[in-house]
């Protein structure tokens, strides 16, 4: 029986299944001295190894005139479940960044770090250097489970330590079994004749990326419902009892394709902690593996699979595969999604300092030698480094006696007032990378949002809203890597210099926003926001968020 057009597999499927466990011709590609690029199929396989091939989009035209190929480079993203590095690992990361990349350490929106600008000939040394720090990039990208996120504020909950272990356990459980990463980059000898057995991923992996996040209410800093699988920790009488498990989150859409849309995960029920939790997560992955759309990658995420199966259908299949039923979902509440800046102490007396890092970019500039400061702080060995879901840094696990030494270094580098000196809206903003490295970007994000915010701040001043924690997110395209559909104000790029304006998302990550205006340029954005914020300031109810206000007043629907 031949496949009709509808059932034809996406070409990426063939690349995966014929890759001999994700090995492809990566090793050969590295020896192609005439180009800084990998061979076509290998560019795809590379993602599973935690890297993307990129090029400097600003330079394309000029390079072409000079009869030079695109300026290719590679981005590497570490696998850091829950976003945790020891001080010695931070020092190593600092050096690797300086030696092989642009130098900037980018904290991502999923609590890990990535480096850009690595040349093909430097990929191996980079990975080998990370390996000496016991760090890898396996499955940070590609059709696999990505970096597992977990509420990042240990100071906020006595169960944080226990919940945090689930990030690592899930990450390990969902790691590909292939030794390809070790063979290709770390020169491990190929021992087996055949490729490894992988009960979870088989030889075709998942139809698309898969994201898992863990939240500890009342803080939804990881935006847990934007994940394919979200675990919401249920704490009763100070004890972790289990998790509400939600499925089907995913924010990407394609302009002009109404079959695609952003979705927040639906809570399916409650699982007790321990093996049952892991089992449930595992089997949602196997369901997605078996039922997900492998023909049209635009409709391949779990959210679309649920559309076809229905939520009830998914639950039934899940319970069948798990061999147990999901309990009724337990009560939980999110009261914030923001980071709690400054010093916080946990129940054991350890200190945590959350530092605002705009767009997660740890680098030195004229105003703030942030990267140097972090290096010196790491050298003291007095803290660990955590990353929040808002791309900020948390200097963690500082003992009481060491707190002053850290504060002295803040003074030295002018970090003492850094958090306070940045506005509320700036501290509640996220922008994706977009230009110059993302091939999908239609408009600027990371390079532009800070400037735009500087122009929005006076408008907020005018309406006495400067302390309002309005969430504002910008992405260069509708894929939503910067979680723009899940903000009170979302700006989604349509073409260079133009954005759709979305409003009406809630503050805590439980309601998506709605498109309000199409393709605005900067003056359009500012004038629309001026109008909306003016109405908000005049007519809001007490403690009503901007997102809730526009919905209540039916300014958008």
């Amino acid at each position, binding site marked *: 029986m031949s496949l009709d057009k509808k059932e034809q597999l996406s070409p990426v499927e063939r690349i995966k299944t014929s890759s001999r466990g994700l090995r492809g011709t990566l090793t050969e590609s590295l020896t192609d*001295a*005439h*180009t*800084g690029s990998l061979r076509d199929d290998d560019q795809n396989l590379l993602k599973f190894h935690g890297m993307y091939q990129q090029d400097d989009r600003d330079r394309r035209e000029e*390079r*072409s*005139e*000079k*009869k*030079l*190929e695109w*300026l290719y480079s590679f981005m590497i993203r570490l696998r850091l479940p829950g976003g945790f590095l020891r001080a010695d690992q931070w020092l190593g990361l600092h050096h690797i960044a300086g030696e092989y990349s642009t130098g900037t350490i980018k904290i991502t929106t999923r609590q890990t770090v990535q480096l850009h600008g690595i*040349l093909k*000939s430097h990929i191996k040394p980079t990975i080998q250097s990370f390996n000496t720090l016991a760090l890898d990039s396996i499955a940070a990208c590609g059709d696999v489970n990505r970096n597992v996120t977990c509420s990042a504020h240990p100071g906020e909950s006595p169960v944080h330590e226990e919940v945090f272990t689930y990030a690592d356990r899930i990450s390990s459980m969902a790691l590909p079994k292939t030794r390809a990463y070790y063979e290709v980059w770390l020169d491990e000898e190929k021992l087996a004749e055949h490729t490894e057995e992988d009960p979870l991923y088989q030889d075709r992996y998942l139809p698309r990326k898969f994201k898992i996040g863990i939240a500890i209410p009342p803080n939804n800093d990881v935006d847990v419902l934007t994940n394919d699988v979200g675990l919401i920790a249920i704490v009763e009488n100070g004890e972790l009892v289990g998790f509400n498990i939600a499925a089907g989150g995913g924010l990407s859409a394609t302009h002009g394709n109404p079959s695609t849309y952003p979705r927040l995960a639906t809570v399916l029920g409650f699982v007790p902690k321990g093996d049952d939790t892991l089992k449930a997560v595992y089997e949602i992955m196997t369901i997605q593996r078996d039922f997900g759309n492998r023909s049209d990658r635009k409709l391949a995420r779990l959210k679309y699979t649920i559309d076809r199966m229905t939520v009830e259908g998914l639950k039934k299949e899940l319970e069948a595969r798990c061999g147990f039923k999901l309990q009724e979902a337990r009560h939980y509440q999110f009261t914030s999604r923001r980071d709690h800046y400054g010093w916080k102490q946990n129940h054991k007396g350890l200190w945590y300092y959350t530092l605002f890092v705009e767009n997660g970019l740890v680098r030195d500039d004229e105003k703030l030698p942030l990267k140097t400061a972090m290096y010196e702080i790491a050298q003291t060995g007095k803290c660990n480094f955590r990353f929040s879901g808002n791309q900020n840094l948390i200097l963690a696990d500082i003992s009481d006696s060491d707190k002053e030494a850290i504060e002295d270094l803040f003074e030295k580098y002018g970090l003492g007032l850094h958090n306070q000196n940045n506005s509320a809206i700036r501290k509640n903003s996220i922008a994706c990378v977009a230009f110059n490295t993302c091939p999908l970007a239609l408009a600027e994000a990371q390079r532009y949002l800070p400037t735009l915010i500087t122009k929005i701040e006076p408008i907020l001043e005018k309406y006495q809203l400067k302390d309002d924690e309005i969430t504002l997110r910008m992405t260069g395209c509708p894929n939503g890597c910067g979680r723009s559909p899940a903000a009170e104000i979302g700006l989604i790029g349509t073409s260079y210099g133009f954005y759709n304006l979305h409003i009406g998302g809630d503050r805590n990550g439980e309601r998506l926003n709605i498109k309000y205006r199409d393709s605005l340029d900067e003056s359009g954005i500012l004038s629309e926001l001026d109008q909306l914020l003016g109405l908000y300031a005049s007519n809001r109810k007490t403690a009503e968020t901007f997102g809730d206000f526009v919905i209540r007043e039916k300014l958008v629907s």
Partner: protein
Amino acid sequence: MKYAVLGLGDTSYPQFCKTGEDVDARFKSFGGKALLPLRKCDVDYEADAKEWFDELLQILSKPSATAAQPVVKSTTIAAKPAGKKYYAAKVVTNINLNDRGSRKQTFHIELGTSEDIIYEPGDTIGIVPHNRAEVVNRILSLTGIDPNTEIQTAKVKASVKELLTKHLNICYLLSSTMKKYAGITGHEIPDIRMDLVDLLRIYPVKEASQFVEVIKTLLAIAPRLYSVASSPEAHGRQEIHITVAKDRFLAQDEQRYGLCSEFLGDLVVGSDVSFYVHKDKHFKLPAPEKDVIMIGPGTGVAPFRSFLAHRDATGATGRNWFFFGEQLFVTDFLYQTEIQNFLATGVLTRLDLAFSRDQQEKIYVQHRMQKHAAELYQWIKDGASVFISGTKDPMSKDVENCLLNIFKEQGQLNDEEANKFLETLRKEGRYGKDVY
């Protein structure tokens, strides 16, 4: 014994026509009688040479001079065109091939003509550069001469400004020119070479009329030769390409610039340039089915771009192996996309690259050659031609030594045998060098 010497030289060298001088002096020392005084020719030799031939034949055809000597018919020589054919061209393209961040600037220049250019891959073109406008203006102001003053020199009549800009060499003057200047101006001048502008500044002329005399002592700007980087079959007959590296060098502890490379690098699209074609018999592609090995780091790539484009356009079946080297892969891979295309279509069978500054240790083309010694030797045994293009010192010497070593290792030859083998290749037209 009667004799006459025509010396062929290049005024950009410190000892212009020294060989001619030595030969003339030697004949004299044997008691020879010069039929004509020594005639020295610059690179642009045809017109001077023709005059010398004509004069000589005049003398030889006189009964008193020739005795039993047969008279060579002058008609066959007179039929040759006087001087070389200059093509009038306009700059069609001028791009710096190196990327931002490179330490070099290498220009790909395309010249367009309205008549067909007679040339083949492997030829070079000669271009007479113009002197820099700022320098000419400075000279004019130092001497106080009216720029429009018309002067008749040995070769041309034109205004002073035009002479200084387009016709006369004003850089790094010959000692003999410096001496003439000293004679005209009455200054005591040390025996070092100088640019005219510095000479005028330090040892000024007393008045503009003295400068007119000085002008008449200046020699013509020597043409500079560039290997052709295009092929008529691939690029059409009314276009010719060259690859020009901006030349920066130290001379007498001073940073100096190559006159012609600066001139060409600064040319804007639409500028007028004239050039002549200098045929090179020894740097030619073999038959289309023969294999070719090309070693051409830096601007040495130029004739090989021409070779590959030609073989691509004509469907030549011979295999092609190219060794290229430069400083940095990201910024200095000259003609990268074209070379990638040649690889993709199969015209380029093998490509080996050496980017010297991409790693701790310096890697050059000869290291790549050594790495593939066995295969390289096999290609040559199977009839391949070998070409080296680019810098003479040290590159071409290092590459040649590498070839000899490969012959010794792979062919179990001793020094003498290896050299003989190379010489045999050269005689067979299978070993060519275009080095500078």
